[in-house]
């Protein structure tokens, strides 16, 4: 499969505070992340809040500039090349649409930015609305006349209208009612199958991730803990953090949860990341070496396509 996106040793540092007489502190939001995504592939970025997954998504979409490292899209390192070919779907459907614009104006905005005529924009927006299951009458209405789930679909229509090669979806289901989530999830799945679009699917919900993704990358405090194919990750998780996350998924009637891998404590502040392996403060397997030496992303024993960063991986 052809490689669509490549991230090489991405660092994102965010300056905090600082004024006339005070030095700034730097927050390491993303630290040494390298990934590759093929055409048509769905990569999920999972982690707790504060893991940096949204930040990484924004870097991929061109909304944030990385402090170090390269982002290559279709072998093109320039941010401009990604504009429009990479689209975004946001978490909050209520702030994703400009309340002053009609739905067709919103949906066709990517085309407007490319210079298309309004006639063309209108017809393309109606097409896009149809693809997400909304009728043409919706085109002349305003966002406030729609529910959350419908607004999210409008946002998806907007992402589709410019025929992107990749969509970064930042927790697109989190703000929706549970009953609507499955509808929108199926829609995303449907689109993926029909158009062969790659997704970067950001989520903290592993259940949803399992349904949609081909590969999964697990982030913790801005660092990659594990990257594996969907099946490998869910059936034979290698990193203790991944295992703990999986154990936390609520399960009904599937037998008792394994006690051993429950996460202890709270995520440390990104301003003061732990030394060595950043996960060692909460890891049930932590030893001395874990606080001294940062583990590299290396293949798990016997499964070369599954990599994880742990001194004591499975």
């Amino acid at each position: 499969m052809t490689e669509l996106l490549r991230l090489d040793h991405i660092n994102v540092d965010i300056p905090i505070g600082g004024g006339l007489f005070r030095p700034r502190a730097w927050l390491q939001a993303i630290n040494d992340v390298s990934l590759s995504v093929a055409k048509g592939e769905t990569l999920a970025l999972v982690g707790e809040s504060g893991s940096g997954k949204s930040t990484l998504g924004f870097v991929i979409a061109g909304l944030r500039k990385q402090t170090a490292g390269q982002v290559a899209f279709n072998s093109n390192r320039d941010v401009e090349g990604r504009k429009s070919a990479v689209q975004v779907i946001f978490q909050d459907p209520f702030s994703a649409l400009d309340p002053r614009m009609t739905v067709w104006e919103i949906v066709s905005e990517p085309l407007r930015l490319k210079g298309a005529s309004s006639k063309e924009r209108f017809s393309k927006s109606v097409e896009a609305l149809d693809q997400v299951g909304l009728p043409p009458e919706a085109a002349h209405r305003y966002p406030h006349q729609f529910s959350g789930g419908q607004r999210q679909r409008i946002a998806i229509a907007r992402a589709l209208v410019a025929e992107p090669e990749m969509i970064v979806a930042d927790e697109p289901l989190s703000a929706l009612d549970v009953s609507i989530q499955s509808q929108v999830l199926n829609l995303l799945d449907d689109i993926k199958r029909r158009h062969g679009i790659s997704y970067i699917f950001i989520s903290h919900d592993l259940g949803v991730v399992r349904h949609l993704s081909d590969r999964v990358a697990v982030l913790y405090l801005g660092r990659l803990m594990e990257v594996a194919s969907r099946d490998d990750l869910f059936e034979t998780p290698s990193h203790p953090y991944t295992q703990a996350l999986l154990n936390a998924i609520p399960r009904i009637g599937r037998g008792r949860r394994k006690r051993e891998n429950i996460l202890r404590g709270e995520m440390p502040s990104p301003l003061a990341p732990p030394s060595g392996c950043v996960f060692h403060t909460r890891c049930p397997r932590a030893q001395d070496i874990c606080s001294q030496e940062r583990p590299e992303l290396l293949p798990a024993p016997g499964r070369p396509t599954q990599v994880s960063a742990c001194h004591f991986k499975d």
Partner: protein
Amino acid sequence: MLRYTISRLLQAVIVILVMSLLLYMLIGLMPGDPVENMLEGNPSLTPAVVAQMRALYGVDQPLYIRYGHWLYSALQGDFGYSSVYFRPVLVVLGPAVLQTAKLLVATQVISIPLAMFLGALAARKPGGWMDNFVSLFAFASISLPGFWTSLILIIVFAVKLGWLPASGTPLMTDAALSQQLLHMILPVTVLTFFHVGPLVRYVRASMIETLNSDFIRTARAKGLSETTVLVRHALRNALIPLVTVLALSFGTLFSGALVVETIFGMLGMGKVIYDAISNIDFNLALVGLLLATIVTLLSSLLADLAYAWLDPRIVLK
């Protein structure tokens, strides 16, 4: 906190210097020859000296030289002579500052409790008739012209009814205190009316917000009387930011004072500045304006500092 204070003080000094330059330039744009005018009021200068100074610091010299000379003298305490009064500027301004201070202090002393009282009454029952009255009152205070209100009050109370004097200060400067206060009633009333308006709105909004908060509900649940709740708890909380509102309102107060002093014939800073500009008295105008600006900036600085002291988050920004 100390760092913040020092940084703000430094900024204030810079702003004052910049303002002094701006005012110097503006004053120079008034009709007449600024340098000639500035030298006029000094009775001790001989014509020869005047000619010499004119050559050194005259209008044909670049601005920065003239300004520099002025600043140099100013920093040594020499602010020049008033060309209208033939006295040193500071001597003229001294009593004027006192007069305006009397006026403003009296205004504040009445305005603050009045605003608190009216605001609390209004907040007690939002939408009630008291609230509507207060709203109307506040509305009127931002719709009425101050100078006209003064005139109407003079017409009604001084001319028609004869109850109060039409001027703000008694004729004899050493008149009894009671006389002085009598003369101050109308001007202070006008200033208070316009000062209280925005204050009341603020107190009312602030109190309504506080009254809806949790700790008030607790107080009520404890069974405290409504008055106690209102006064002891809600008012106190709503007042804290009021301090900064007051400090920032100095500019508007001073503007109002200028108008009132002019109409009521009170020789305060406002009137002095007004007369100085009308009579093209450069030195007096410049220093008077600068003084007003400095006091205003200092009070807004105090507001910032008080606010930062009360809300530590500002400092950490």
